[in-house]
């Protein structure tokens, strides 16, 4: 049976898994952005915290994803089997690109513009929220886009700890030695990643100021 035939004949399961996958990614991305962007704002003014935060986020990124899921299972509260553990892992993965791009975006604003803002009598908070953040928004969005593409891919592994999603087909296909079943998970995941990349790319260009 070809993978297309398999997808068509199992379309309701594939759709349900895609929906599950998407929810997993959306929740993780929302949390990662809610942590990463504000943390990026904070570390701009705190060099010591910046070094620590970026180092921790970088190290997290280097842990193989399957191992990270494994590490989380025995942990109380955030661990265990299921979607919430997967979300914790996905958030940790998504953090670095968002945090780094927020920091880079905020620090790469033309110093002449910042000095003009200061000279006009804007307070540090006004400069941050009315000048720096809007001018950094496109770079921050680029970080969110990178994180989204990574998260959609890594989320397939979440099926290993019972989080569901498109990874379910991939693991099942590996066990059954069936390319058709693997592709029933891999193709929708790839389409999701391409779509996210395209749509967030549009948003990023809209935010760009020249």
């Amino acid at each position, binding site marked *: 049976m070809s993978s297309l035939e398999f997808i068509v004949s199992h379309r309701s399961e594939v759709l349900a898994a895609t929906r599950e996958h998407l929810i997993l990614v959306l929740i993780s991305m929302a949390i990662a952005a809610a942590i990463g962007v504000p943390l990026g704002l904070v570390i701009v003014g705190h060099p010591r915290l910046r070094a620590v935060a970026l180092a921790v986020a970088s190290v997290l990124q280097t842990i193989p994803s399957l191992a990270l899921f494994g590490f989380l299972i025995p942990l109380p509260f955030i661990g265990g089997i299921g979607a919430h553990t997967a979300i914790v892992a996905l958030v940790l993965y998504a953090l670095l690109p968002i945090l780094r791009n927020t920091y880079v975006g905020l620090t790469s604003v033309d110093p002449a513009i910042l*000095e*003009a*803002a*200061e*000279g*006009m*009598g804007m307070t540090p908070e006004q400069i941050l929220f009315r000048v720096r953040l809007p*001018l950094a928004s496109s770079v921050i969005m680029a970080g969110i886009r990178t994180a989204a593409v990574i998260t959609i891919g890594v989320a397939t592994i979440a099926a290993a700890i019972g989080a569901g999603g498109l990874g379910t087909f991939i693991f099942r296909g590996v066990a059954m030695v069936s390319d058709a079943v693997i592709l029933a998970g891999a193709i929708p995941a790839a389409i999701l990643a391409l779509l996210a990349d395209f749509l967030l790319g549009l948003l990023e260009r809209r935010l760009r*100021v*020249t």
Partner: protein
Amino acid sequence: MINPIIEFRQVEYQISTISQPILSRVSLQIHGGETIALLGRSGSGKTTLLKLINGLRQVSSGAVLVQGRDVRDWDIIRLRRGIGYVIQETGLFPHLTVRENVCLVPHLENWTADRVTSRYAEVLQSVGLSPALYSQRHPRELSGGQRQRVGVARALAADPEILLMDEPFGALDPVTRAELQREFLALKRNLSKTVVFVTHDVREALLLGTRVVLLDSGRIIAEATPQEFVRLAHPVARNFLAAAELATGTPE
């Protein structure tokens, strides 16, 4: 004797104790309504001198007084909102429209919407731009001369008594520059503002300034009206004049 609106008292400015001071023993009084041209070569300290007035730099020793009060004793935000600041074209906020740029300080000062609207129209007309035509444009859609006009309008928006301009016309082509200089003179006649501007162009200093302050290596080496300036014997002044082919007579 009327009190000066801006006063430098024995100002020293240096970044580190081992390096040459950027400004040394600078004393200067600026009175209301004057247009002071700070003239000097790159690195002479003229921009630093300007930034001491709105607190973007702080003196190492000595004092800068604005309206009789030491800059260090001012609420820095209050001080800056009462001083218009124009820099070369990079100073406009690229993500804001012309109107948003111009009305920024009035908004921060919580002016009513009506007052902001009428002030916007007023200042844009005063720099020769149509308020309606430009209101929704972004800086990238403007020519260099238009951007500079908007920069001046923005500095004037909250009706400050003092206007600081850092090489305001430096990035413009000669024709546009001459046009803006003429307009600046006309504008200055209608406004009772004190203007301090930085330039390395002696022609501009003589044309726009009511007084020219010549800086060299962090010191004031001459203060003169434009009429006096062309007769100065100081070699640095002669160099400036000679470079612009404005020298009158030969000093002994």
